[in-house]
């Protein structure tokens, strides 16, 4: 089964939060930002410093040039939240990563170094602590661009200060089904967060997966950001839970019907497209959290929701129909 290994089960996996990711953006001091580097030697040295730091003896990280990857591999990394899309369109970019992709450092993207840790469940503190240790290790061989006034200096002024971004991937089926996403967006924006769809097709969202990230990186400490994330995401989880329960109480029969229909399709189909599969899995996730159905673990539903997308399955050889057959088979094998 093709799926990203960082999405493995863990004790913190819940009904609503799929994964947490922290990024720390850093740049070498007195050196132009990535898009302005003209000398090959500087670009090479920026990459080599990180490679020496992270892939040296005893360390398990690997190094790949983005240009050497196939478009399928690149797409899979973008969709799997490992690299930002802009890393694929630029020359000279590279990635340092652990076997399960939970740890990664994107080199010469928007910033010289973008350190990332991603894990299943809701754990911003641990993600940050790993990123901080990575940054500290790198700082032993590269002096970072930093000013007392503006903090860590990043290419985009939107990340300056802490250079820190926390993103939380959430399944908000209840709020989406009750047409509350607009209100959620407004209240998140007011508290310094942004929200975007994980899956969308011709700008129409589907699958009810959302990424919530902090927009403030300046004038707040790393601990402030972590506390804000915990508070805001915590409130959103409560809101989603209450909405799910209310929806179920008010529409018991219709929700049970839709959950079992989704299960019927997923359990029995022989050919299934990615959009249909993801939408049915989202319904199944709701059913599982409300105790309507017990077909597999919630984290397995989340793993399927991410691994059955077209981008994730593009590496399987064959025609689109053949991939739709593999997708149906993959889901049938998992569901009880």
């Amino acid at each position, binding site marked *: 089964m093709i799926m990203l290994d960082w999405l493995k089960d863990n004790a913190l996996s819940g009904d609503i939060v799929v994964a947490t990711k922290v990024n720390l953006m850093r740049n*070498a001091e*007195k050196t132009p930002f990535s898009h302005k580097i003209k000398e090959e030697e*500087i670009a090479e*040295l920026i990459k080599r410093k990180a490679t020496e730091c992270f892939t040296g003896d005893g360390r398990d990280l690997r190094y790949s040039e983005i240009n050497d990857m196939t478009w399928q591999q690149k797409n899979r990394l973008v969709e799997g939240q490992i690299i930002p899309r802009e890393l694929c369109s630029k020359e000279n970019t590279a990635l340092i990563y652990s076997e399960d992709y939970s740890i990664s450092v994107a080199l010469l993207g928007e910033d010289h170094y973008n350190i990332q840790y991603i894990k299943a469940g809701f754990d911003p503190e641990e993600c940050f602590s790993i990123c901080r240790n990575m940054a500290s290790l790198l700082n032993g061989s590269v002096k970072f661009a930093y000013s007392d006034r503006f903090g860590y200096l990043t*290419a985009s002024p939107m990340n*300056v200060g802490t250079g820190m971004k926390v993103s939380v991937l959430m399944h908000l089926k209840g709020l989406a089904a009750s047409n509350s996403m607009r209100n959620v967006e407004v209240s998140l924006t007011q508290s310094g967060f942004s929200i975007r769809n994980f899956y969308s097709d011709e700008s129409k969202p589907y699958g009810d997966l959302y990424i919530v990230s902090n927009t*403030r990186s*300046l004038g707040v*400490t790393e601990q402030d950001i972590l506390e804000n994330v915990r508070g805001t995401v915590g409130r959103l989880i409560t809101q989603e839970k209450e909405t799910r329960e209310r929806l179920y109480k008010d529409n018991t029969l219709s929700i049970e019907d839709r959950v079992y229909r989704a299960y019927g399709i997923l359990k029995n189909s022989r050919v299934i497209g990615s959009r249909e599969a993801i939408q049915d899995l989202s319904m199944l996730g709701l059913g599982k959290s409300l105790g309507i159905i017990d077909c597999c673990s919630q984290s397995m539903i989340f793993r399927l929701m991410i691994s059955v997308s077209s981008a994730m399955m593009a590496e399987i050889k064959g025609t689109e129909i053949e991939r739709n057959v593999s997708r149906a088979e993959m889901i049938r094998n998992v569901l009880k």
Partner: protein
Amino acid sequence: MLCNECGKNEASVHAVTIINGVRNEMHLCPECASKHPELSRRFESLAAMTSRPRSLFRNLLNFGFDTDPFEAMENILSCPTCGETLDDIRKTGLFGCSDCYDTFSDQIIPVLEKTQGSSTHKEGEVQKENGQNIGDAVKEEKKPDRLTELQEALKKAISEEAFEKAAEIRDEIKKIKGE
């Protein structure tokens, strides 16, 4: 009043220009006025003034100049380290180097206040490890190459009896070696 230029038609365009303190009055008929591009430009500005207040301000400052003074001002301001101008930054949304934060601080502070709710860093985690400056590291790596190059140039200069040049090269070698 008849047109100053053709002397036939009634003048309906009246323009007063003061250049270096010399006052010059022009009274033209519409036909002759249309032959003066500098006059028609001002009329366009007038039309624009009434429709957009921002243009009004720009045009007020623009009067009598060929370029927009705002644009001119912004383009003059470029980062001494990387050469990035505000215009470049506006296009990419990215600064060219860390010094841009100082160069464009007047422009960026209000933007940060608006988007981030603050323009001052609050110190939390600061990494104090002393890594190397990448620019210095590149120079460091080039050092042996540059030394060999200079030593050869020195030999050549001596063999050509170009002693003045040889002395210059010797000084540069000393500098690189840190003597």
